[in-house]
């Protein structure tokens, strides 16, 4: 007998996909409860989310990869199975992703064009990698420049998700001296809602959360000033770090993997950028919640922040100068000394001149003046 609350399974929907995969309603509700928690939504939303997602049609997704290292795709596909990430990715219709799709050459491009045509105004565009503006030939797919492909595909998209720091902020291609003239998606696409999911790579479940939000509410989540979902990028790594109490106590690891580091003391002195990095690593963690860089003994490098590659050495503490050196101060002191000698010489000359110009008066001269 069918459970009274079991929603009807409509053909072509996520619900049908779930049923075909043998995912029980209980499992699906657990997934939705986790997602609502991650998205900082009230627990009561879990049911509504399950309802909305199971009735939603499989979302058409076009994934474009530009100047990137495929780390973002690796991150998402290397998640353990079965995971929330895999589950959701099986439930969308990934119509174009030139690393993952079986089709190649013209057939691949045809898949993209067909998806754009069939889902005009409705498909979700995911982009990883930056776009080279210096020369269209720097990066092309099927002879089409990254810029042209992005602008053409963005035109009919409901929203764009810029995955990874390269797409969201320009990333390492944009780092000084930026030889390809790399820009982010948001730099050139101005007329579409863009969700930035930065990170090098980003956390898989953040991606899942954004997709779940889109499927549930049909819109984009609340974003911060850098276009990142606040539910994942609302707090710094430092504020959520399990090593934080040691920072407050003034207990720091002095070198990598020393006894203090193993005991969980703070990695601030080793260059951790957690205090200025907004991301969810410290709470969601990586590899099925196993660990995250700071837990493994390496400071945060700040990979979800714009221009983090150019924000000073990775292994210098945040309170250290980016480039000031003792020799620079020595040279400044020498210049100050030279200027001091000049000022002293000037003062002494003024004093000597005043002394030389001083005329002594005699008593007779004074009495003459009185008369």
């Amino acid at each position, binding site marked *: 007998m069918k459970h009274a609350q079991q929603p009807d399974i409509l053909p072509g929907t996520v619900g049908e996909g779930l049923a075909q995969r043998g995912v029980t309603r209980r499992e699906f509700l657990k997934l939705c409860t986790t997602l609502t928690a991650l998205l900082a939504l009230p627990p009561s939303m879990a049911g509504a989310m399950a309802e909305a997602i199971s009735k939603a049609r499989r979302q058409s997704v076009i994934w474009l990869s530009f100047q990137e290292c495929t780390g973002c795709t690796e991150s998402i596909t290397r998640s353990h199975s079965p995971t929330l990430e895999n589950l959701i990715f099986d439930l969308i219709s990934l119509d174009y992703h030139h690393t993952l799709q079986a089709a190649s050459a013209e057939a691949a491009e045809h898949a993209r064009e067909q998806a754009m045509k069939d889902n005009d105004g409705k498909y979700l565009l995911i982009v990883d990698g930056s776009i080279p503006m210096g020369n269209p030939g720097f990066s092309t797919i099927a002879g089409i420049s990254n810029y042209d492909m992005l602008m053409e595909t963005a035109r009919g998209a409901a929203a764009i998700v810029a995955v990874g720091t390269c797409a969201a902020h320009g990333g390492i291609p944009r780092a000084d001296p930026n030889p390809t003239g790399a820009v982010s998606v948001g730099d050139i696409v101005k007329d579409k809602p863009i969700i930035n999911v930065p990170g090098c790579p980003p956390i898989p479940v953040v991606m899942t959360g954004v997709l779940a939000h889109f499927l549930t509410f049909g819109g984009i989540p609340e974003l911060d000033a850098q276009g990142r979902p606040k539910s994942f990028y609302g707090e710094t790594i430092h504020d959520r770090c399990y090593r934080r109490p040691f920072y407050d106590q003034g207990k720091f690891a002095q070198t990598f993997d020393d006894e203090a580091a193993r005991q969980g003391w703070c990695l601030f002195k080793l260059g951790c950028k957690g*205090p200025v990095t907004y991301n969810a690593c410290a709470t969601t963690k990586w590899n099925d919640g196993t660990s995250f860089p700071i837990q493994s003994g390496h400071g945060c490098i700040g990979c979800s922040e714009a221009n983090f590659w150019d924000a000073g050495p990775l292994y210098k503490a945040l309170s250290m100068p980016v480039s000031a050196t003792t020799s620079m101060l020595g040279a400044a002191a020498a210049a100050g000394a030279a200027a001091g000698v000049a000022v002293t010489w000037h003062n002494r000359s003024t004093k000597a001149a005043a002394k030389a110009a001083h005329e002594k008066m005699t008593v007779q001269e004074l009495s003459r003046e009185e008369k």
Partner: protein
Amino acid sequence: MSHLDLLTFARGSALNWALVLFAAGVVLRLFEILGLGRRPDLAKPRPDSPGSGWRTIVMRSVPKADTLKRDAVTYVSGYTFHIGLLVSIFFFAPHIEFFRSQSGFGWPGLPSALVDALAVIAMVALGVSLAHRITSPVKRMLSDISDYVAWAMTLLPLLTGYLAYHHLLLEYTMMLALHLFSIELLLVLLPFTKLFHAFSLFISRWYNGDISARKGVAS
């Protein structure tokens, strides 16, 4: 320009220039002051008080009972503020890292909560000092604009540091950048304002003690 870009500028070029101007300014002023010289003292010095200059440095740092009674606000707020400021500067772990990067050596820090409390006490004491300066007719008459500027320049690093630490008012990265800018402003102006007493204080105390002893007024 993102907040992180601003912070990178504050930690980079802006800090370099501030440190250069600070180092050059301090050395210049020391040369200028010491280069003024004194007339040779031809009188035979009194023999009974060697080391009087050094003793004066210590003794003038301890308030006398009667002066403490006469102007308790100045003494208490002054001491409280200076102790809070010095602990905040030299015993907060991230600050020690800065000094280590420039000097090559560091020292143990104090727990952040303790430094935080002392920074708050220092700011309260600064507020009391300002109120007293404004309400006391003598102090008000003696003060000019440079005193108020020096007061504000001293408060700003404490205030921005406190706000950054507690994530108040502005986003942390931005507030940290403002904290650095306020310090850089202080560094640039310190050698050329009354705040130079940080360097000249003990020189002048030593000189006063020493010259007085030579004349028979042992400390």
